[in-house]
């Protein structure tokens, strides 16, 4: 399930790139600084914490498809997981788009 440019907000104040799982202290620090107009992109190991981060974040959360697939987290069309808030998966192309749209980028 990939997002097109049309689905991304017109302006993102901060793009937060998080590559650490939720129990890492820096992940908590990241969550503490999120604003509603921000975007969180989970990459590398952080995709494993997608449900937790998506629930906690006041802003949209995306994850890199390649990292999710590597770790066995497949995109599913199951309705019940949709209801639980599945984190949309994107490719490196959309990662670049998000970075271009953001006013600032923080890699945690």
């Amino acid at each position, binding site marked *: 399930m990939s997002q097109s440019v049309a689905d991304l907000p017109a302006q993102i104040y901060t793009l937060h790139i998080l590559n650490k799982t939720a129990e890492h202290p820096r992940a908590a620090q990241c969550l503490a600084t999120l604003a509603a107009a921000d975007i969180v992109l989970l990459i590398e190991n952080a995709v494993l914490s997608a449900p937790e981060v998506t629930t906690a974040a006041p802003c949209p959360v995306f994850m890199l498809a390649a990292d999710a697939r590597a770790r066995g987290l497949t995109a599913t069309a199951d309705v019940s997981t949709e209801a639980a808030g599945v984190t949309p998966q994107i490719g490196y192309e959309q990662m*670049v788009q998000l970075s271009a749209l953001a006013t600032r980028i923080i890699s945690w």
Partner: protein
Amino acid sequence: MADIFLKTYTLVITGAPYSSQAPQTALDFARAAVTAGHQIDRVFLYGDGVHIASALACPPSDEPHWPKLWSEFLTEHQIPAVACVASALRRGLVDSGEQQRYELPAYNVRAPFEIAGLGEWVEAGTCSKVIYFHSGA
């Protein structure tokens, strides 16, 4: 895409190859950025990231050769690349100039990487969008 949406990026990599995913994520980002028409002003290696510049890495043939993949990408797109001198020297990444200066037995920095100071990073930050690729540890 209209030109006003095209950006200039500096990529800073602080995670080492084979110890972190940073070099891989950064390269996939870099390829996507160039494909989309953005410009990469330079790539800056800092901390453990300097190991990407090694000419002596010898991974198994069925694993990606990160220093080689990076040097090929940088050469193909003529993107300047710098390994921070303080980080590199401490970790034993030296070019021929440093080899002579310190009378070392060899040099091992792979082209097109050059050794330079943090001033390059400071300057890059004044004229491009800087994105960092850290270790996940």
